[in-house]
């Protein structure tokens, strides 16, 4: 079994109200020194078969059309090293 992680973040120019709310809350809670916070989502996909190029292509398609709203979000796809130690790689 292999795990592929898709990270979805709002594009840099897009307003992130959640991130801003967190940023505003930090100093109130005594955490100083943070100049900006951006909040995103992380999908962990467990694959049935091997992580080959075809599987990654399929996941990228999935991310493009469903997991991320590419009008306002960017995503990255990466393979997470599993306990058994399958191949690792990163793509975006």
């Amino acid at each position, binding site marked *: 079994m292999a795990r592929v992680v898709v990270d979805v973040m*709002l*594009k*840099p*120019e*897009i*307003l*992130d*109200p959640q991130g*801003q*709310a967190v940023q*505003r809350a930090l100093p109130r809670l005594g955490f100083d020194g943070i100049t900006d916070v951006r909040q995103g989502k992380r999908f962990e996909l467990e694959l049935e078969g091997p992580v080959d190029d075809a599987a990654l292509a399929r996941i990228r398609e999935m991310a493009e059309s469903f997991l991320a*709203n590419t*009008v*306002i979000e960017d995503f990255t796809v990466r393979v997470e090293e599993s306990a058994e130690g399958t191949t690792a790689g990163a793509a975006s």
Partner: protein
Amino acid sequence: MSVDTTEHAAKTPDVEQPWAELGLKEDEYARIREILGRRPTGAELAMYSVMWSEHCSYKSSKVHLRQFGEKAPENDAMLVGIGENAGVVDVGQGYAVTFKVESHNHPSYIEPYQGAATGIGGIVRDILAMGARPVAVMDPLRFGAADHPDTRRVLPGVVAGIGGYGNCLGLPNIGGEIVFDSCYQGNPLVNALCVGVMKHEDIHLAKASGTGNKVILYGARTGGDGIGGVSVLASETFDAEGPSRRPAVQVGDPFQEKLLIECTLEVFAEDLVVGIQDLGGAGLSCATSELASAGSGGMRVELDTVPLRDATLSPEEILMSESQERMCAIVTPENTERFLEICEKWDVIATVIGEVTEGDRLEIFWRGEQIVDVIPGTVAHEGPVYERPFARPDWLDALQADDAARLARPANADALREQVLALVSSPNQAAKTWVTSQYDRYVLGNTVLAQPEDSGMIRVDEETNLGVAVATDGNGRYAKLDPYTGAQLALAEAYRNVAATGATPLAVTDCLNFGSPEDPAVMWQFAEACRGLADGCQTLGTPVTGGNVSLYNQTGEQAIHPTPVVGVLGVIDDVTRRTPMAFTEDGQLLYLLGDTREEFGGSAWSQVVHDHLGGLPPQVDLERERLLGEILVNASRDGMIDAAHDLSDGGLVQAVVESCLKGGKGARLVVPDGLSAFTFLFSESAGRAVVAVPRSEEVRFNDMCGARGLPVTRIGVVDGDAVEVQGEFTLTLAELREANERTLPELFG
């Protein structure tokens, strides 16, 4: 990074500038050079390009919009007319109401949720900038065919966006429309209307006067969102393949907007503001140039003081950014500290970015260097004005000749029954509850009526029960067949809807949604619709107080149906006297008001049963509409009617079914002499309403209609749990409810 200063621009006349990419035409760029006597700086070019875009300058529509002022009827209720952020109407008891409808069509196609959400945010700030507390919103919507896959993407996103933003803001959504037609495929219309209430003395205008007064930008930080949104998005046609460019979409934050509302109302209450303007399309370019040109002096702005979300933004980008939830106020130096204090209390960032100066120039500086030096009026108001060619489309004769009278009518009672079921379950006639129940309709506790009633109604004063009612209507099918009549039918329907709830119509706002003005046929439709609406408002005595034009709703050669959406606002002295639409008691007598003719052109029946569009739309008789309105308002005030429902698309049968389902009561109908059952049920003749009269008021009501010369026909009685058309068919309420209510959940649920 070197900055393109005015000094540098004067010395380097031959620098190539990206005017074409910014949407300017060659002659427009030449005109800017002529105005300035040199080439514009990058920042100046950015400002002119957004402010001279179709969306901001109304360059194609201006010559036709003038009629709304020229033909405006005398109306004592108008306190502020066209040209301000929104018109203001006197509703009595010292109250004034401001209302306006705007489009957010193009952004909502690209990113349905955020497009629709920021549409609400924008119109709410327009209303706020007049000094009013926003109290309600409405959304007239148009989508492609209900069963088209892209409608499944666009509609749920738009509805969620409207609900998400409006509900978070705590504003009730009291009505609007949802219409499906394949002509809106790829060009959905997302219009948003907001109503605000204030006392007369609280009206605020957008102007910057008083040398030394401070220019304060407050609200959200400025980021890179929506840059060029106006010039690129709203002013160009999408390519046939869809949007090739995907410029940054604005994302809204309703909680920030809520703070902005409360903060702004508090600075108004303490009388700290000389002038105010919201930041919408064209952002700071628009706010600074409009404020400065409306005031008596000039303005100097230090652009590097603008709080940024992204420190890498260039001055051009800052000027063009359409970041949401921002406002700009002019405040005297004595009041500035208090203004900033109030902003701080509300957790709203506020920054003095400049001041009002002597002279007549808008000067903008970036890190000490002058990057803009213009006469603000040349940016804000002296944009190009086009007399675009227009010509009656050559296909119109054939379309009008294709009379709906030729269409096969139901052969027998069974077929008639089936067609009634088909009508009430068709996406356009089906219950819209699936959509409207996603909106908060009752927050704030002053909603008297909300969708599906004929108009939304809000209580303005809790002591006296003074209220206002608003309805929006627009039938693109009618307007396609005849834009002049179509625009008047939209006005007539909204007027009738307001009167049907018992409110007296006072004023109009409009959102004119059309295809590309560069197509003479579209331009003709636009010109005719403006003429029709202006003439209609003159006859009805309801002036246009403001609104919005949305052009380029077109994919390739395919323009949308001309879709003038008309909002009418009315006043009611006592909201407890309102007339609801539901039939609620057995024995209530049903009367049809107005004349029924053989009118099926553009009708819902012709669309649902025959997929046909042709012939002429129903005739308009505005004097009759006015009379009908007076009768409905009088009957409401004097307690002569229990219910009223306007007749429009779908005809009588649609209205009766809706009123029966709302009240959970059936009706027995008798076809009047001289009409076929088919015409009785499906005709869409204008100027009609159905009313439920209690037996005790029958004589008085009939006498009133007779004395005023309004045709009135008794058509049946409220009774039982089925709609029965005597001698034709019976449909139980259960069958009708199933047909009417399952459609939208099945399509989108």
